[in-house]
């Protein structure tokens, strides 16, 4: 029993940063722009959040700074792909390299500096509920924030005018133009908002999860976020479930090892990816057909074979 609780709780804890990144990627891809630079935005968020948290002592200001740093990097992606028509894959990877360089240049002096980040805060009453309380309500504030962000993004995308514009930019951009909206502005807004969310995810890593900064600390979580969006079929609610699943796979190994089981962490790590591939292979046509139409154009150099 304690094993299950450990894994679930670890899944929520470790999955949250990935979730923020994937929510950001969802918004961006819904507008028809894939952003491989999400990994970079998370790195910027991790360092931005860390620096501001160390200097001001306020983790909330840190999270905000992380979000802004992530948004700034995504704005560059938006500029390159939306206004300059650059390849989305090449631009995203380029910005990842930019973020790697910038964060190691400006982060070097912060390695090993102590930080007073977010600490665990048990929600009164709710945290006493067996299992559920431990898993969901004995976490840090950014986890609680994510409980609100997920339905908010869903509401934004599917119930508001802004969401309609974003989805139209991703599905039938020409009808935006017909109605006098700027596709470029909508896409740039969505990509930047996506970077903002990814930045929070990065800040969660450095000032809530690890309470440390080190070079390249995001180590692939941003790419996992990109994969997760496909797994979740561009739905914010499913992103949440998927992120916890990825998080649990990461938590399972150490939980088992702590109990003396000799398991190989990396076989477990591969599960979410293999699962995503299997889902795609089985439901491929269905999944792909539910992807934003403008996104398909990005992927498809040639008409589908």
């Amino acid at each position, binding site marked *: 029993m304690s094993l299950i609780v450990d894994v679930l709780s670890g899944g929520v804890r470790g999955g949250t940063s990935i979730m923020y990144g994937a929510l950001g990627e969802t918004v961006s891809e819904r507008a028809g722009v894939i952003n491989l630079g999400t990994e970079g935005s998370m790195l910027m968020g991790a360092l931005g959040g860390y620096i501001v948290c160390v200097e001001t002592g306020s983790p909330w200001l840190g999270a905000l700074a992380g979000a802004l740093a992530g948004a700034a990097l995504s704005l560059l992606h938006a*500029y390159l792909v939306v206004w300059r028509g650059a390849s989305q894959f090449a631009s995203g990877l380029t910005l990842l390299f930019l973020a*790697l*360089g*910038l964060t190691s*240049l400006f982060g070097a002096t912060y390695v090993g500096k102590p930080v007073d980040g977010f600490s665990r805060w048990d929600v009164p009453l709710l945290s006493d509920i067996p299992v559920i309380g431990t898993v969901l309500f004995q976490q840090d504030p950014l986890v609680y924030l994510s409980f609100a962000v997920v339905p908010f993004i869903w509401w934004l995308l599917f119930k508001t005018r802004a969401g309609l514009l974003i989805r139209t930019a991703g599905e039938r951009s020409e009808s935006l133009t017909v109605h006098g909206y700027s596709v470029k502005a909508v896409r740039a807004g969505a990509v930047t908002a996506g970077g903002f969310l990814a930045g929070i995810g990065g800040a969660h890593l450095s000032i809530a999860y690890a309470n440390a900064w080190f070079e390249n600390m995001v180590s*692939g979580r941003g790419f996992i976020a990109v*994969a997760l969006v496909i797994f979740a079929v561009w739905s914010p609610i499913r992103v949440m479930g998927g992120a916890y699943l990825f998080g649990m796979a990461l938590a399972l190994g150490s939980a088992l090892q702590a109990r003396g089981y000799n398991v190989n962490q990396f076989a477990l790590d591969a599960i979410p990816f293999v699962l995503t591939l299997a889902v795609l292979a089985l439901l491929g046509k269905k999944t*792909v057909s539910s992807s934003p139409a403008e996104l398909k154009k990005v992927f498809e150099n*040639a008409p589908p074979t």
Partner: protein
Amino acid sequence: MSATLLTPESPEVAEPEEAKPDRLRPILATVWRWTSALGVALIIFSILLLTKGANPFQALGDMFKLTFTSSRSVQEIFIQMAPLVLGALAVAVPARAGLTNVGGEGQIIIGAVAACGAFLFLGDSAPGGLIIVAMFAASMIAGALWAGIAALMRLWAGVNEAISTLLLNFVALDILLFLIYQPWRESRTGQPTTRELVDTAKLPVISGTQVHIGIIIAVVVTVIVWAVMRYTRWGFKIAVAGGNAEAARRSGLNVSMLVLSALMIGGALAGLAGMIHFAGVEYKLRPGFGYQLGYTSFLACWLARHQPFPILVAAFVFASLSVAGDSLQLDSSLPAATINVLTALILMAVLGWTAKRKVSV
């Protein structure tokens, strides 16, 4: 209007020979593009160095001096260039068929894993020549099969190869980590690595240098890829399929086979890149093996506009930048990864200035 912006142009079909004067202009344009991009990138990079309290003239001057005048660094450039060239070709061949191979990272790892597996299977006592041949074969076959998964997923389930190759990168990395943390681990106590390759099976070096023959292999393969693209029926067919799959199908081409073969050959080239990095530089698998080699290759290929000979130049530039990063660390005690900023700035300048004329994925 912006919809068209995002629709990537298909890779060009080999054009007939043009008149001489017309061929000079694109070369001049290329030279101008590179120098101006480099200039702007250097200026912004200098400003960043200033904010860190480093004297940019001195830091950059020392960096260039150390990188290009020391024979050790120049040799290091050629060593690092070899897998980049092959990794970039692994993107270029599928791109010709209209496919986006973002899976170089994983294919390189799988190639190295297969090479290491071939060595461990044959054992230390096998003749070195046999081990090398086995490693070459194993790495290319494994890379091709790994990319083949993505090709089959595309053909059977309509899953786009950009998604599947990206996902396969993580599976490949986990396979590598799984192997070196358990079954292939040399010792329980030390670092998680595999046993070192026997000396006889290490790639020989070019006499008088420390540069292994990987660079020669890379250049030869570049010429072969160029010739195959330009002069063979297959090269022509994949370009047709990449240009317009429907037209290709109607004219009787087997587009599925072309997609499969182009992506698998790409995978084989990336596997080869992994093998020469393993048998030429690393000699053992470790957790960070080949880190970002695949993504760097993707960008090098993009910068070279998917053309084989420009890939040699782009790979040289990326390798130089990587070595320059180490020089920067030695001279100015800035982290070596700082050089990624300069790399990215150059790429951004090229992305931002030239993309409108020709968008390629």
